[in-house]
């Protein structure tokens, strides 16, 4: 799982690639930690190169979403592959996280 973060003040563009699974969820979490304390962040995550997410990956997305909500910001996940979207759908996480 590779995470690229391009930040200009509160505007943050994140690119994810690979698999967010049990073996690398910790690193995924570490990589997005700098985003957890931003005030009113505007985060756009490009998931076009993301192949899969496990429960651990969902938990990282959830942690980020909760932080964004708490700091009065917004977050959107874009270009997600259908097989990844399905994981969000069958867990109810599509109700929590804004996926376009």
């Amino acid at each position, binding site marked *: 799982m590779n995470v690229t973060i391009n930040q200009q003040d509160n505007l943050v563009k994140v690119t994810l690639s690979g698999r967010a699974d049990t073996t690398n969820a910790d690193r995924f979490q570490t990589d997005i930690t700098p985003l957890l304390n931003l005030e009113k962040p505007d985060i756009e995550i490009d998931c076009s190169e993301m192949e899969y997410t496990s429960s651990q990956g*969902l938990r990282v997305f959830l942690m980020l979403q909760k932080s964004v909500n708490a700091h009065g910001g917004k977050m959107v996940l874009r270009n997600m592959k*259908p097989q990844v979207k*399905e*994981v969000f759908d069958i*867990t*109810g996480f599509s*109700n929590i996280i804004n996926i376009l």
Partner: protein
Amino acid sequence: MEQYGLDLHGQMILEAYRSDMAVFEKMRQFIDSQLHGIVEDNGLYVTAIESRVKSEQSLAGKLQLKGSKYASLSDITDILGARVVAFYSDEVDKIAALIETRFDVDWDNSVDKRKLLELDRFGYRSLHYVCHIPPSLFADESMPQLNEYRFEIQMRTALQHVWATMYHDTGYKSGMEIPKTYLRSLNRMAGLLEIADEEFSKLRIKINDYRRQVHALVADGNFDAVNLDGDSFNNYLALNPFKYLIEKIASINQAEIYQDTLRPYLPVMQGMGFKTLGDVERMRFECSEYAYQLALHQLATTDIDIVALSLSLQNLCIVHIYKQGGGIDGLLHFYNMLFGDNGYNATRAHRTLEQLDKINIV
């Protein structure tokens, strides 16, 4: 001081004001914090709490006009003034009652302007209390005047405040006499706002009664008698109606349940034609087993061990639509309402329909 043209008596009062400015400022900060505390501790919702120490120029103006009326600075009760602006007239009374318990009220100098107006007069309506800070509440040995000087607290509604501000701006202190016809218009506005104040208070009482009624009906299980709306849905959710279903779904993979909000489903269910909580309850009874079967079909072959509470309601709605013969169009409409109109919803709807077809819903 000579700049104000005051006589010796006026100059003495103004000098006392200057030397005690720190006292007044300390009083102001304390009173301001007390008023905020009164409002917050009692769950009251106000539009503003303001306080100010009278400016030197304003005091000098007052002394020029009627300085001989005051023997000393402590006779002037509005050097320090505070104001609480509430939304509702009954809340003004509540705030007043709370202020009475906090400060010593000088009743001889306090005025309820709401009661002073003649039956056929409309105009300034506000409650003014002149108070002391009791030593039991706050004292400072270096500033005994803190408990000697009086201060004024105005309490009014937002609409009374609007009228008073407009009147102040256009009439009372504009420095120019305005024609009686305009004054009459201002006073007519006071009557109009008084009616609006009363209507807002009555409306709030009616809404609170409605909420209590809905709460009682939901608690008694009279779901068909309760319209599906924001209040009733919140009361319904407080009963945890989807707890059993989501726990059953979570048991498929021994999953953790994330307690997300179900509020986004209110407009969706309304869009599905649900009118009462009874409609939601019927869906829950008739579709829970199939909603579980759908989740079993989706999750059993995965190692996913976290689900959102909303998955329960999501699957209930999906099964309900299928049972009602909604087909692909019904599912697409549902996803469009839930996630917004986007190109992926058609894929979602087709995939969901394939899964539903496999679980033998009757």
